[in-house]
């Protein structure tokens, strides 16, 4: 009796906690509502299965608990039942996998009009690079890294000269425009993660990784590092500001290009 009640309470408690506890995902700020939808589908399917299995166990414990003179049934197999259960499980699994794969396809298919934002990670800070007027970013390599050129932008690549370099400051993004995040690291693995965007991807020294999304809500969001990167991993933070186009342009105007940073003396003279 007691065991059956506790098992039932585990189910009830879990369901109540799920619906009533204050801990839930952050309000979304990107186009990846589909991901949230798939999570909800998965919660429902798995929740029903969990409740069914545990409640069935509770019932068995209640009903078939040993009493004097009881004897168990002898039933080695039941092919029909076993196949029905297997097929039913297959259908449930397909119901989760199918939408999942469709959304994954969208997740890895970057729209043509996405603008590029490069994120460069190093222990334990974020830097960013935006393309200049030419819409492209210049080549880069760790071999070019110097104290004056911390992102390793190739000084000989003309596309790199007008790139906007943001160091020690927040990233700003225009509201409602798809962005492709190009992710780079110079020392160890990192991961550029903004919970509200529902997206993350590791950054690997020696490679460029990416993901894309469209910011759909203005605000200031936490940037976290989501891949262990040594002592300072917990504190590798930043912010990303999503704002309407006008504000964004105003912010962009104040940023320095690679060329300006390389020759600080001459730019100051011009200003």
């Amino acid at each position, binding site marked *: 009796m007691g*065991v059956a009640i506790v*098992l039932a309470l585990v189910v009830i408690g*879990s369901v109540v*906690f799920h619906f009533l506890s*204050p*801990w839930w*995902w952050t309000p979304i700020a990107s186009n990846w509502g*589909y*991901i949230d939808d*798939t*999570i909800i589908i998965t919660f429902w*399917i*798995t929740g029903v299965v*969990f409740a069914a*299995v*545990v409640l*069935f*166990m509770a019932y*068995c*414990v209640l009903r*078939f*608990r*040993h009493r004097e003179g009881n004897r*168990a*049934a002898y039933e*080695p*197999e*039941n092919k029909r039942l076993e196949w029905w259960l*297997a097929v039913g*499980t297959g259908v449930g699994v397909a119901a989760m996998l199918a939408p999942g*794969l469709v959304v*994954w396809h969208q*997740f*890895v298919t970057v729209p043509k009009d996405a603008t590029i934002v490069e994120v460069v990670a190093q*222990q334990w800070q974020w830097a960013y690079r935006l393309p200049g007027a030419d819409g492209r970013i210049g080549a880069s390599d*760790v*071999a070019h*890294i110097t*104290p004056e050129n911390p992102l390793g932008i190739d000084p000989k690549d003309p596309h790199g000269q007008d790139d906007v370099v943001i160091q020690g400051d927040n990233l700003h993004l225009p509201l409602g425009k798809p962005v492709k995040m190009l*992710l780079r690291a110079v*020392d*160890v*693995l990192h*991961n550029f993660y903004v*919970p509200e965007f*529902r997206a993350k*991807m590791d950054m*690997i020294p*020696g490679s460029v990784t990416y993901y894309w999304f469209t910011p759909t809500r203005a605000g*200031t*969001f*936490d940037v*976290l590092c989501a891949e*262990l*990167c*040594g*002592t300072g*991993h*917990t504190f590798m*933070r930043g912010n990303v500001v999503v704002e309407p186009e006008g504000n964004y342009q105003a912010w962009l105007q104040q940023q320095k290009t690679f060329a300006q940073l390389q020759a600080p003396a001459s730019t100051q003279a011009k200003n």
Partner: protein
Amino acid sequence: MADVTHDAAGPLSAAEVDDVELYHPKSWITKYVFSQDAKVIAIQYSIVALAIGLVALVLSWLMRLQLGFPGTFSFIDPDRYYQFITMHGMIMVIYLLTALFLGGFGNYLIPLMLGARDMVFPYVNMLSFWIYFLAVLVLVAGFFLPGGPTGAGWTLYPPQAILANTPGQQWGILVMLVSLILFIIGFTMGGLNYVVTVLQGRARGMTLMRMPLTIWGIFTATVMALLAFPALFVGAVMMLLDKLVGTSFFMPAIIAMGERLAHKGGSPILFQHLFWFFGHPEVYIVALPAFGIVSDLISTHARKNIFGYRMMVWALVAIGALSFVVWAHHMYVSGMHPAFGFFFATTTLIIAIPTAIKVYNWVLTLWRGDIHLTVPMLFALGFIVTFVNGGLTGLFLGNVVVDVPLSDTMFVVAHFHMVMGVAPILVIFGAIYHWYPKVTGRMLGDVLGKLHFWVTFLGAYLIFFPMHYIGLMGVPRRYHEISGMAFVPPSAATLNEFITIVALIVGAAQLAFLFNLVWSVRHGRPAGGNPWRATTLEWQTPQTPPAHGNWGKDLPVVYRWAYDYSVPGAAEDFLPQNQPPTPQPA
């Protein structure tokens, strides 16, 4: 079914070892220390595994103290925290669970359940234990060397694992890699032994399809381990070379803290593939023995044959095979080519089907059973709850796009603790309560046992169920504290405190268990040869605890499968596997 259950003695087993051929120990040292008896080796493995497991448990308290009460324990700085999670994770997965299931239960149960006198290669078996022991000592040495143990995370991802800014990069990482290499060497010796013994050492009549599921689980897991560990082995050797000789297997060109390193051209992601080609099967290397054991616990204590035995065997084998083609589900956000996501998500979710079949068959075994709520049965029920819970959250993480927001968060920590931490540990406890009477001849205390069960089961559920939601919120794993995140409400700190307190209580309950283990050796109720009235061969030995050679003069002959419980018409509610068929009245 008839062929599985009731036919008379099958083919002769290939290696019938005569008692005289065994090496009988002549001194105390060869009997208890350098023993070649699989049963003694099993106990040695188990004691060392539980001892080092205790270290991992203490580390989990320290981590939880930091997370629950950040800032209160100033000696747990980020470096130490990372050293603790790394050692905790590695010890739990490899040095506790793998060693205990295969080295401990495997050694004890394979010869006894199959009606063999011992393992086929007793000497190699002894070496296997001593190399394991050495591996544990080398691992522990990390705590005492300058710089302490490695804090690279149990996944040891390069480049970070071997660079400055990661704690333990002087010595810790080296001893970790060497220890893993030793562990794999020791395991390979033991593992080959288990496989050969299962294939060659079975008693007359013990066909493969009459083996208890415990043996099927251990056997499949061992085969998998023999195939999976080499990937970790080469990964560890390559990383050692990168660290010591300056090769660049895993090291691209790097600027670390403004310094240009000498490496170039290597691939960090190559290590991840090697690691998870081992790491995912590893999850099942721990899970399959648990599956097998729990099947036998449920069947014995519900007095009912396991439901769908053949399906259970094939499900084990299918899971074992499939688990070699899913490894990259740990790498969905690693930056590997996104197209792999489609493949690995599909294979991963397909594994859910044989796994679900196993769950159905466990609960269907309860249906119309005669359920004795003994301590092993309680642990088996607890296993089903936590395993189903953790298995289902695996469907979130396996479904590639759902994994994107959840990966590397506390959701993952909660998931794998539920499914491969708590669930197998509950089986280990259940199995210890179940087989302890055979090992010592005495029962473990029942009242303490029930207390141990309820605190551990409910406590573990309370620790890890709410933790999923902290991860769903977006809190990353391997974070020293959760302050300074705008999206985390202050109430999360309260939840963290609660989890920590429960974790300390659960930890204390394990001390009660250890006390029970030690106390009952002398003071437990005498058990007799077959206290659970079980059918499998280990309960039919002439002596309890079984003597060296297990069976006295004659090896047992097997006439039936392992699950003849409550057979209609039989006088008792169980028929031992070595009981000859009674002539049917015409």
